[in-house]
């Protein structure tokens, strides 16, 4: 058995934090991605430009720089807004941008841009005839989205989605840099104090690989589910 010098429970807590950050930012990024895809496919010139600007700028900046900007600058920005609200309308609110919020917001924001591209391609892959048929049945926009476009889009989006998730999972390691006690931060603290970097870093690496393998299995099952009716070939 590996000797963890009593760091075992803290590492497990850290692993939980990593998973929490990853899942929450996945949810955020999927929502942002759907919005971006809709904006980019919209007929409005402004929305189209806005979506393109978002995906281009976000994908051109390193994730760490964006995270530092949001973490150190976010509180300042929020304070300016809440101060203004207080002086103007006497509304007193306090919003705290801590490491967790900054981490989830940044990772969600970054992968929202990637998800946007994935979803856009997937929506375009759904045959237009399907949408016309749904309209002919008298479904409104929301119903067409819920019953026809979304389920069929998911089949095309899943491979890209699973790719993005794997990259997102690894990006969560960056939250340790802004001070959140995730798996990586605790492992690096432990390596410094016990002077055994190999034990802790290799262990954390193995946990990442394990999470990736489990999610790969999960995505394969989802893919199967969304490909119902399309045969095994896909």
């Amino acid at each position, binding site marked *: 058995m590996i000797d963890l010098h009593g760091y075992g429970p803290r590492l497990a807590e850290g692993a939980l934090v990593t998973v929490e950050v990853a899942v929450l930012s996945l949810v955020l990024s999927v929502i942002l991605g759907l919005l971006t895809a809709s904006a980019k496919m919209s007929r409005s010139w402004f929305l189209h430009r806005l979506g393109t600007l978002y995906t281009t700028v976000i994908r051109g900046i390193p994730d760490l720089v964006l995270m530092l900007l949001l973490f150190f600058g976010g509180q300042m920005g929020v304070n300016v807004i809440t101060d203004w609200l207080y002086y103007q309308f006497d509304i007193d609110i306090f919003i705290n941008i801590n490491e967790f919020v900054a981490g989830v917001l940044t990772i969600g924001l970054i992968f929202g841009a990637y998800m946007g591209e994935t979803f856009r391609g997937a929506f375009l892959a759904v045959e237009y005839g399907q949408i016309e048929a749904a309209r002919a049945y008298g479904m409104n926009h929301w119903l067409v989205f819920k019953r026809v476009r979304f389920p069929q889009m998911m089949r095309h989006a899943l491979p890209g989605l699973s790719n993005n998730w794997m990259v997102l999972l690894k*990006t969560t390691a960056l939250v340790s840099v802004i001070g959140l006690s995730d798996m990586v931060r605790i492992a690096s603290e432990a390596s410094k104090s016990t002077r055994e970097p190999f034990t802790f870093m290799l262990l954390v690496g193995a946990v990442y690989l394990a999470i990736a393998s489990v999610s790969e299995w999960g995505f394969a099952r989802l893919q199967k589910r969304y490909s119902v009716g399309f045969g095994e070939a896909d």
Partner: protein
Amino acid sequence: MQALSEWFTELLADNTIFTAQTLGYYGSGLVTTVQLVFLSLIIGLVLAVPLAIGRSSQRRWIRTPIFLYTYVFRGTPLLIQLYLIYYGVVFFDGIQETWLWVLLEEPFVPALIAFTLNTAAYTTEIFRGAIKATPRGEIEAARAYGMSRRLMMRRIILPSAFRRALPAYGNEVIFMLHASAIASVVTIMDLTGAARFIYARYYAPFDAFLFVAAIYLCLTFAILYLFRYLEKRLLAHLKPLEQ
């Protein structure tokens, strides 16, 4: 010109952050980032070519270790690989007495090793995909000419695989540029390191980080256009015919 320089001086006069000194920090940070990215990409590329050939080998004992290497390095965060090499290098027995220590003492070399191993793993997989996608006809034609495996690799498979790998490799280069920001975590004064230093000194997050973000954005676009130009030149024969 006179008006422009006056305007510029006025612009700089108003702030205490963007002085000649801090711009100097950014400048040397830019040099460090470019060095780190460029060196790791070049060495990674050189390593990746034989690895990709081995990865697509028929023999299992060649293929499997390379697969394990790429699987582990692609499946774990770069930050962990960096920590492992940066903290771990001290623990090789007697390394501090050898000449290598002069190099390894500085964080630059451990970071370079981590980045190189990481990009080599990704590039190996990109090349393997490209090698696998070689059209069968090209291989058959080469065989019909009586080429040996080596000659076929050199003359037919690799040149066409390199071209096919170009778009994916462009993405990898941009990914590496962005990943290099992590170097600042192990006290390297790269672009991000310079921004963190200036933030800590003036407590001005927007000025410090938005400025480097803009530099990274420009670098990204430069790489993007370079690869688009290369693709246009090298993949001209694959373009669909114009109607």
